[in-house]
């Protein structure tokens, strides 16, 4: 494929059409029951169970610092993305199509009628979400912030079992 063509998935979010490169998207899913996570930064809108795995649901608008998206609910569509082994679901309003479209300038592709569709960068969004979450904790173990900046995962009571499971001792 020439450099100026991209495999993308086109979706709408808050009435705006956007696209994401397919290489980040593992599948399009329908969200299960979404549990909200109090104290999480606005970009992390909740978490749900996908085939036995806990997957966070991200708010694209909040991560792009463009306000707030709708609260994710069961049955909403989402793009399951995986970046550096981290899985997350990006809530969207509607998935329109999977297409190979020519790239336009400034992070966009051109749709069939030649209109520019902005590209979102799932990798950057996930990294932003991780950074936001770490900002809640505070970067340094000893910083005297509230509530409690110490690593939540230190101490004898949390015991790590392997292959992704943690036991509380």
């Amino acid at each position, binding site marked *: 494929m020439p450099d100026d063509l991209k495999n993308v998935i086109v979706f709408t979010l808050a009435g705006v059409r956007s696209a994401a490169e397919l290489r980040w998207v593992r599948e399009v899913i329908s969200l*299960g*029951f979404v*549990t*909200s*996570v*109090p*104290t*999480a930064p606005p970009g*992390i809108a909740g*978490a*749900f*169970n996908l*085939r*036995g*795995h*806990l997957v*966070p649901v*991200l708010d694209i608008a909040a991560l792009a610092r463009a306000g707030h998206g709708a*609260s994710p609910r069961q049955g909403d569509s989402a793009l399951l993305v995986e970046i550096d082994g*981290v*899985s*997350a679901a990006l809530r969207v309003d509607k998935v329109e199509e999977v297409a190979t479209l020519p790239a336009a300038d400034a992070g966009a592709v051109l749709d069939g009628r030649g209109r520019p569709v902005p590209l979102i960068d799932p990798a950057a969004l*996930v990294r932003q*979400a*991780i950074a936001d*979450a*770490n900002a*809640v*904790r505070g*970067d*340094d*173990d000893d910083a*005297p912030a*509230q*509530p*409690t*900046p*110490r*690593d*939540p*995962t*230190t*101490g*004898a*009571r*949390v*015991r*790590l*079992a*392997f*292959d*992704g*499971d*943690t*036991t*509380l*001792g």
Partner: protein
Amino acid sequence: MAERDLLADFDPDELAMLRQLFRDEAHEALEQVTARAQGAGAGSLEAVLEMMRTTHTLKGAAGTVGLDAVVELTHALEGALAAVRNGQRPWTPAFADAVVEIVDGLRAHIDAHADPAVAAALANRVRELLAPWAELPRGRRPPRDDDTGPTRALDGDGTVVDEVDATATGGVTNPDLSGSHDARTLLRVEPERVDELMSAAGELLFDRNRIERRVQLLRTLTRDLGRVRQELRDQLAGAGSPALGAIEGQIATLSTQLAQTSAALLDETEAMRRTLGDLQRGLTRVRMQTARALFAQLARALRAASRATGAKVELRTRGEDTEFDKTVAEKVTDPLIQILRNAVAHGIEPPAERVLRGKAATGVIQIAARAEGNLVVVEIADDGRGVDVKKLRERLVERGRWTAARAALASDDEVVAALFDPGVSSRDEADELAGRGVGLDLVRETIARLGGEIRMSSTPGKGTTFTLRLPVSTAVTHAMLFKVHGQVYALPNAQVIDVITVDAASATWPVGGERVPVVELSRLLATPGATGDGPARRPAVVVAYADKRLVCSVDKVIGPREIVVKQLGPLLAPLPLYAGATISGSGKVQLILDPAALVRTAYPGHTLTDPAIAEPVRASLSGRALVVDDSRAIREALMSMLAREGWIVDTAEDGVRAWGLAQELHYDLIVTDLEMPRLGGLELIGKLRADRRTAQTPIVIVSSRVSPEHRRRARELGVRGLIAKPVTRRKLLEVLYADGR
């Protein structure tokens, strides 16, 4: 041995511990006997001898911990096996059946230890089972009852066949079920010890994460230093001061070295990451067991179910060597048995119907296990009548569960999946619906709690297949569940000491004569759109962690539950409030609060410290002894008796291990059993005597076979004494200190 004699030998606690050890050991031994009785070459002399030896070892151990009924029953079973060995009775399928049933009964009797009346009744049941095959002590022999004899069924042409063919086919498809794996060569470890190691390795992981973060910080600082140096050089460019220039040069050198060191440090944390990964994987493997024992249990359940319904079913198993976590295996056993029972009760047609449909008269249930990445896949397939999807579709609409439109649109698989829904699978409806699905909602819930999933597919007339995807390993813990703003949260039960009711307005609340802070979880866990004030009196959980106590007011307490803990992942783990998450039976994510974070919220500025661990004090010694016996209960009993006399005691489970130890260490006393796997007691003593270093070591034999021939051999080998099992402290001391002390 009477209870009071035992209590002269052991503390009550110690006796309880020894009996627990015995029960563990008995389970393993009985499992081996079952496997032998059902496996390939079950009637061979070798198999019978092994069953006899296992039974015999069990008898000795039971005697030592004072379980007289077990001694009596194992003795009778040994006698029944001896009759086969001596050629007085042939090995028949009926006898194999009886052995399996007797072993099941023995296991039930041993497990019922908490209730003496039940245990006694179960012992009587085993006596009934034994009666046709073995001599029982006078007065124990129950009246012969036609129902208690070995059960047989007649084939069409009048041949006597086994009711369930599981034995025979299990042997054909699975020659390995015979237990070629000698469990006694394995190391037995308390699961708690492995958990402690896992815990330590887990903490190491957190330490590593902290180190990595520090190293990253170091690199940032190094870059900052480089920038400052650059600025300094820019400033100096105009000044032309040689002294300052030299200092700038030194800073440059130091800055480079610092950069190199932090890069190297980062590489080393990477090496640490790899080693830790190996460690973790290794520890996970320690908890693994093969599907073998699980399959044996399923074969037993199938046998019982077939007997109850009169169905003829053959069990085929595949993938016995598939490994999974012991906890997963334990949790999944009941659901699998449930599925098997359903298959026998509702899936497999009666023989006549099967023949009419052009199938073999005997139904087939296949169980296969295989590893698939981080999952274990277990498939149970029957060749029965399958689910009548059409009828089920109609029923769902008739009962108002589905709308007609939904039923019309749903695929067959979706309709079948409705059987997992509560209510659809109630017993009343099951037969009408499709002859399926008793308790399937519970089966699915159990699997979901484990973090697995179950699917069902069915072809009318051809059969039904259940596919379970289970995590290879899992971490189950106890937690207290409660609701806040309509969401369910959990706290580790180990840190929850009470559930109380508090005034919502109070900042502190009396707990055990002390006022402790109240944390309002409805505030801490505020969600967008959550309404503000609740009722004036609220339920609350009292949390104790690291010497601190606090009260957490909640909206509603759900109660304690067993949960599977999931890791939060890089996106949620940084949030201080949560220690993990779990998935509810209905598939919802529930967050687990970190008690440490709650304590820090309630006690700002307080530094948590772990209580110091006291060093154990070593007892004074009077010599080093080696105890050799293949029964762990007997080893522990002897160890306890000797330790009380001031001995330091090592143990070995067979002659080979003992010989190895005796080569390495000097022993002042060796106490050995005679009949052991690999290297027996007399052979061991022979080797010890032939070695200059151990030629004079005092040796005591502890055995249940004390014939004049044994005594003669023992004397020849210069053995100090010979004790008949069961061992008591008095017998041991008499032999040890016969010449006065």
